[in-house]
């Protein structure tokens, strides 16, 4: 039995587990900004699943593209979170800088 199969299973379990944790966090949190944290975590779970496929199939047709998908999702995670947070701040306050300005004007204790 090759070493590839057990390593791929461990990576698969870790990746799927991370995504399940991300969904559990999404359901458990009550604030939308708390919920947005789990977008990035789910991306890393997808990357682990992609690495599991690469370990199992080596750098083949499916291995290369799975790795590409994982890298896309990990790179897109922070972009999505930042742009969504910016949009939600504009939706709530009219300008995304407003809360930052308020925080600067407030004297620190």
């Amino acid at each position, binding site marked *: 039995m090759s070493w590839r199969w057990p390593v791929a299973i461990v990576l698969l379990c870790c990746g*799927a587990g991370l995504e399940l944790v991300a969904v559990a966090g999404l359901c458990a949190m009550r604030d939308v900004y708390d919920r947005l944290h789990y977008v990035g975590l789910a991306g890393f779970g997808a990357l682990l699943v992609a690495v599991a496929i690469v370990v199992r199939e080596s750098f083949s047709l499916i291995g290369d593209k799975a790795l590409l998908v994982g890298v896309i999702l990990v790179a897109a995670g922070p972009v999505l979170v930042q742009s969504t947070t910016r949009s939600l701040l504009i*939706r709530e306050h009219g300008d995304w800088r407003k809360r930052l300005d308020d925080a600067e004007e407030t004297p620190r204790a």
Partner: protein
Amino acid sequence: MNAWEIAAAALGFALIACALVAVLAGPAHGLAAVEVGSVLLTTILMLLSQGFHRQPFIDLAVVFAVMGTIGSLTFARMMERQL
């Protein structure tokens, strides 16, 4: 069922939870749920491609990863004022 298909099924059930949050919570919460759900669905497509030994189907996951990201960015942009 092999391990890839079992993982895809487990993530499929998790996708239902994301759909429930998107339907039952407000629009902003729904956008966060859609973003997590698109990552989940991309992973499910990868897992099914590997589990069914249909390697060309991984292209669906590649396309959905890009389109899901663009769609989420579009919704986030529209959410600023119009939705």
